[in-house]
């Protein structure tokens, strides 16, 4: 085990979350964003009606996939953004503050996502 990994046993776990988030967002986000962010607003396709979308959202598989996407996507952001701030802006000395902001944000966002997805019951 490397010296840094030994000092911070949580690091490999955070990297695994980053990695899983990278995979799931690579697969799901472009399609969903193209549809809800561009195609529907521009009127290229008629938006699905509310009842249909609610039924899709209420399906347990949908909610599980969306929860995984939100949680892993946020941890993907947290890990990558942390290093972008360290290296990109040379802010290594504010390590603790940046870590708190990134991972804290991901934890809060994950709970928020879980709450909103449960609300859709």
């Amino acid at each position, binding site marked *: 085990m490397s010296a840094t990994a030994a000092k911070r046993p949580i690091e490999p776990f955070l990297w695994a979350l980053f990695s899983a*988030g*990278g*995979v799931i*967002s*690579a*697969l*799901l*986000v*472009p*399609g*969903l*964003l*193209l*549809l*809800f*962010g*561009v195609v*529907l*607003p*521009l009127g290229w*396709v008629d*938006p*699905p009606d*509310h009842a*249909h*979308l*609610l039924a*899709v*959202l209420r399906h347990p598989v*949908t909610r599980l996939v*969306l929860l995984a*996407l*939100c949680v892993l*996507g*946020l941890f*993907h*952001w947290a890990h*990558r*953004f942390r*290093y*972008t701030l360290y290296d*990109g*802006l*040379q802010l290594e000395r504010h390590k603790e503050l940046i870590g708190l902001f990134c991972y804290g944000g991901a934890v809060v*966002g994950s709970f*928020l*996502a879980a709450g*909103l*997805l449960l*609300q*859709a019951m």
Partner: protein
Amino acid sequence: MSENVEYGGYYARWHRPRVSRLWWLRRRSYLVFVLRELSCVFVAWFVVFLLLLVHAVSSGEREYQRFLDLSANPWMLALNVVALCFVLFHTITWFALTPQAIVVRLRGRRVPGRAILVLSYLAWAAVSAVMAWVILG
């Protein structure tokens, strides 16, 4: 100062060259690297956008209509077009790195990187098609 200074193995710590905060503007490859890393911000934005949609749909028909109006706002549309470019960049660079990060073995033989790349794109296409089919029903 003592004559018998003991040197440990940590000289590297003494030398900390100062790096400019704008180092990533110096070369195209550095800029591409930073843009790739910044794609994560748009992944996080998408999570926010998705949760707005989830909240709107579960709050009722009127809220859903308000979400559709919000997403048609020119600023929102512009933001989402930029975000889409970044997440596409994320997907392409992520798939390109996957064969270098993992070694897949099948019956004791290493699966070539190109095959993993092709499978990634096929999986992406399949997942996107299924989502479009389920959502647009």
